[in-house]
């Protein structure tokens, strides 16, 4: 990944008082800062800005909502019971299929500088339930590591999470921005995960992300340094020679990664809210991700017709299991019958899947 240059910092009124803001200013001393009050926020962004999504503007603000909340899964499909730590929204990468393109009305790389203050509150929730395992991730509304060199999330989060026995923190990325992570001497209860795809999709759809090889080299480095790894094949996309193309990715996994150190590998197929289609077409006119037989799923999202999803998962499951049989494979937001037909078993419901993944945490992390 080429580190995206930040051209401007927007600082919302009152956000300057947070220490995280000061630390970011120190790392970006040459970048102009613009204070913005409520009036400016209400005006919205200028024309054309939405298309660019402000991927070179760092917007520092205090987030007023809940920092820790369950992943917005769907009750119509089996979900994994993941918890999201909301540290930022938007991402400097520019994947054509990214759901964040439609999730947020506000562009810019929005970093929540009241994280330290709010983290204490969030951890009170997890501390109040020591019997429960919390699988927590920061990579749902942003890339967990893409801005780490500027914001320093690793040094802020890892010390807090590593000492809690009922928590596993997953940092999900498509970058090789691991320096800050490796500089810390903290490994316990931390999973570093990479989102992977076929070489074709990586090159053509995951703009500004690190190449597959760079991601896997970074993953190997993390593994050598003692981190437990996770991988996410999401979204799986049909394209010409997709079987061979996904096989190439698994071959690369084999080349760089010791499968025994993997806690889980998830698979999810391309899906999107209907309104995202127009946004994708406008922002990425040459994309391949909208090709195929998409139907409206039970949750209102567009997804491949069921037999096609089964075909994708079955193929990838087989080649992954041929590589190593105990990878903690699971499907993201899928139906019971799709599980049965593609995986040969089913957790039956969301609590079943949560139980399965919690067991993986116990097995690989303790």
């Amino acid at each position, binding site marked *: 990944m080429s580190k995206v240059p930040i051209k401007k910092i927007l600082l919302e009124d009152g956000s300057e008082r947070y220490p995280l803001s000061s630390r970011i200013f120190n790392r970006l001393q040459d970048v102009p800062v613009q204070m913005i009050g409520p009036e400016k926020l209400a005006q919205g962004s200028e024309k054309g800005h939405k298309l660019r999504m402000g991927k070179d503007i760092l917007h520092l603000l205090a987030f007023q909502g809940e920092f820790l909340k369950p992943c917005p899964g769907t009750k119509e499909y089996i979900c994994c019971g993941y918890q999201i730590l909301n540290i930022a929204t938007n991402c400097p990468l520019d994947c054509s299929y990214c759901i964040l393109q439609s999730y947020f009305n506000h562009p810019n790389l929005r970093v929540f500088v009241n994280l330290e203050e709010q983290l204490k509150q969030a951890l009170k929730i997890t501390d109040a339930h020591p019997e429960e395992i919390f699988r927590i991730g920061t990579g749902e509304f942003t890339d967990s590591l893409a801005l780490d060199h500027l914001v320093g999330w690793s040094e802020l989060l890892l010390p807090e999470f590593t000492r809690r026995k009922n928590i596993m923190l997953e940092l999900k990325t498509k970058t090789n921005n691991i320096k800050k992570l490796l500089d810390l001497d903290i490994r316990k209860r931390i999973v570093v995960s990479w989102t992977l795809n076929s070489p074709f999709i990586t090159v053509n759809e995951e703009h500004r992300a690190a190449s597959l090889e760079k991601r896997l080299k970074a993953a190997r480095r993390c593994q050598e340094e003692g981190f437990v790894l996770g991988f996410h094949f999401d979204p799986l996309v049909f394209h010409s020679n997709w079987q061979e193309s996904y096989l190439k990715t698994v071959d690369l996994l084999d080349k760089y990664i010791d499968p025994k150190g993997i806690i889980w590998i998830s698979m999810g197929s391309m899906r999107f809210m209907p309104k995202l289609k127009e946004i994708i077409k406008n922002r990425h006119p040459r994309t391949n991700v909208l*090709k195929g*037989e998409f*139907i409206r799923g039970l949750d209102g999202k567009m997804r491949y*017709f069921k*037999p096609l999803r*089964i075909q994708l998962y079955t193929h990838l499951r087989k080649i992954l299991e041929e590589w190593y049989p105990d990878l903690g494979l699971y499907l993201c937001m899928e139906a019971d*019958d799709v599980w049965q*037909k593609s995986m040969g078993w089913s957790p039956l419901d969301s609590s079943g899947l949560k139980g399965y993944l919690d067991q993986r945490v116990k097995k690989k992390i303790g």
Partner: protein
Amino acid sequence: MNKKQIYNLNPQMLSLEKINLNIGPYTMSFDFDSWPLMESIKRVGLINCPILIKEDKPVFTIIAGFRRIQALKDLDITSIPCCILPGNCLNPLDCLLLNLYENLAIREFNDIEKGMILLRLSQFFSDKEILKDYMPMLGLASNEKDLELYKALVDILEKDIKKALVQKRLTLQTAKLLLKLHTEARQAICKLLLKLNLSLNNQKQLIDTLHDISLNEDIAISDIIDTPDIARIYLDVNLNVPQKGRAVLAYLRSRRYPILTKAETVFKKNIARLKLPKGSTLSAPQYFEASNFRLEILFEDGNDLTEKLARLSALKDLRNLKSPIEGLL
């Protein structure tokens, strides 16, 4: 504007050759029927004289009365009475507003004319002023998207598509979808839509489906429309227009969703083979996405229901009923 100068004008006879008969820059008429005006002029003569201005051009420019001049021309009248303003009397904005207010008082504008007005106003006013003052005047909501849409209708659409819109053979929603396409695709779709006379929803569905097929198969939309399969449907003398519309949509859907269509066909065949009792229907979940089927039985009373249930239970193939998606690929 010096209003007195307009009140005090005496009409002068002017040869048509000396008038610029093209639309604009102050007039805003599109696709009108001059016949009622011709009839009126024939019966009672020209009641109000057109207003023209002498600008720095060899011919006079129409400020108001474009339709009247067209009607007189269609009546083969070559010399017409006009009120002529001196060149320095009104600036271009005043000329435009004079026409706008005169028309506003006597008629409604069609969508293309609204676009023409907004485009012309945008040469003199900011978007903010147009949104606040002029869009409500034209009966439009004051939002930027609509402003851009109406201007694009004039700027981008071809004349035949504009006409179809004005004549209500295409809806504004459909025109909006057509704006996003390339000229060739837009014209091909418009031609097809006009042949099929589809409802708004079906027009939208047709455009979406064509677009998806084009994307999936990497083929131009005009090439999909020119396929012999579609030509065969609309040349079929045994089908009326609504049937042709449905047939074209069905053809496109099967091409857009080949595997889903195959599953639906297999399911229909399987159900037909079951020979369900009369009044019983078995339906699949939409797109076979959910896992449950639905059985509906119409019955008159308990006896009737019991009989039908017994006949259903006796159907030997019923136990073999399963989702058609298995073994599809």
